[in-house]
């Protein structure tokens, strides 16, 4: 398992680097090398590190371990063909990580990031639509059953495209430089991550790169099916590049606009799913 964790972490960081590079090239900037995020994590690992005097120490450190823990567990769930509901639960628990990271330092910037994380709970709603649609069509929430269903009936991407769109929206919400990334936007410095520096930031980056890997991998397995590893990685990269295009061409929304857009998009997706379900029934 440990070799999968290490590989997923480095691939996730490499994906973050590619994401930055693609955005830069679209915006006609040279951009950093694609391994920049790996260098960042290594650099942070050897920087002088301490805990801010005002922080709640146990929470300040504990929440980082929780971030790595939940996304390691999510990777295990995916690899073992476990429950999609459990994966959904872990994704929801990431909200606690954002919230706890922001609140723990006592910094007003972190706190604003944490508050924004709560008010953008609408970002989680599309995942409900995904889970419900997958369950309705496949009759199971076990990832292994969903993969087996697709081997017989073809990719869910073509059977329930609105559900795939909902999950795509979820991934888009969670990547860096997303139009919905209001919790870490620059007017509040780095938002909930502002006071986590040095080794703490490196550890957070490990957790977040695992998150990126898991979400992209989950999309491929749930909506396209089990494929050879190189095909899977290639498809994950293709999805990421398409997201980079969205991020490069879309301004960051204000918190209330972000919630409004996500809510409307989710409403439309749910309506489309309902219509499709009624028509097919």
């Amino acid at each position, binding site marked *: 398992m440990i070799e999968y964790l290490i590989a997923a972490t480095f691939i996730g960081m490499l994906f973050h680097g590619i994401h930055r590079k693609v955005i830069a090239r679209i915006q006609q900037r040279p951009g950093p090398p694609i391994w920049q995020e790996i260098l960042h994590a290594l650099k942070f690992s050897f920087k002088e590190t301490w805990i801010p005097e*005002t922080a709640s120490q146990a929470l300040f450190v504990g929440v980082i371990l929780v971030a790595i823990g939940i996304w390691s567990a999510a990777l295990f769930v995916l690899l073992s063909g476990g429950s999609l509901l459990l994966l959904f639960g872990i994704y929801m628990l990431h909200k606690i990580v954002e919230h706890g990271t922001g609140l723990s*330092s006592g910094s007003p910037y972190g706190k604003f990031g944490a*508050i924004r994380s709560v008010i953008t709970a609408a970002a989680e709603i599309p995942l409900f639509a995904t889970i419900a649609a997958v369950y309705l069509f496949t009759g199971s929430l076990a990832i292994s059953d969903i993969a087996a269903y697709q081997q017989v009936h073809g990719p869910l991407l073509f059977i329930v495209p609105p559900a795939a769109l909902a999950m795509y929206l979820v991934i888009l919400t969670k990547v860096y430089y997303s139009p919905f990334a209001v919790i870490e936007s620059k007017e509040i410095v780095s938002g909930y991550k502002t006071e986590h520096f040095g080794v703490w930031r490196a550890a957070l980056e490990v957790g977040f790169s695992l998150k990126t890997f898991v979400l992209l991998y989950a999309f491929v397995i749930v909506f396209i099916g089990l494929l050879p590893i190189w095909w899977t990685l290639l498809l994950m990269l293709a999805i990421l590049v398409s997201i980079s295009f969205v991020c490069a061409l879309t301004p960051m929304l204000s918190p209330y606009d972000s919630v409004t857009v996500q809510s409307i998009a989710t409403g439309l997706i749910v309506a489309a799913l309902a219509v499709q379900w009624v028509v097919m029934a």
Partner: protein
Amino acid sequence: MFSLPTGQIGGRELFVVEFGDVVNYFSPYTASLFAFALIFTVIVIISRPERMVEIAFGGDAYLAKEIPTKDLAFQRFMAIACGLATLAAVVSGDLFNFALFTSMVGITNIGIVAAVRSRHVLNAAYQYGIVAMVATLPLFGAAAITLATTGSLSLWELYRAGITVPFVAKAFLVLGVMGEGMAPFYVAKAEITRAPGAPYILMIHVSSLLVFLRVVEIALSM
């Protein structure tokens, strides 16, 4: 003696813990929720609160608030109680106990908010208190309707394919949990900027989220 009929929602049953009539079960799903609640309960027990830093508008100055630890003792106690109630709710094996521990989560959430000595925060606690109290009606109503129509509150029975739980009972159950778990919206309000005690405030969010994740599993499985 106990064997969960559904394998596809929360995974297969791993083991059962009995406390007399109170029977709890651990599946991969409930065990994960339990582990997460346990981690944050431990964090609450060992954490000291942060000191809030505030920016003085109109300049570069900032100041750190000094909050005496004893002022937050009740908030900490309520957060630990909330953690324990959450632990029980996420592994509960019958609908009544689930409703009971969920309502305890609601009550302790109010306590965490109400422990802060600020008129604005107390107003928020009062408002959430009303919502949480009202929500106990659909919550226990769901258990009552389920018992009246199926003759059982045991999830082992209710998960069986032959037993149909009325949709209204499921809807009431989810509605009740939403009411009890209303408190996270408190942190999105301006009052949060006045409320210290990050580890304890965070427990509001943790408990509500975990209980919500549990009710999704119960509603889908029944």
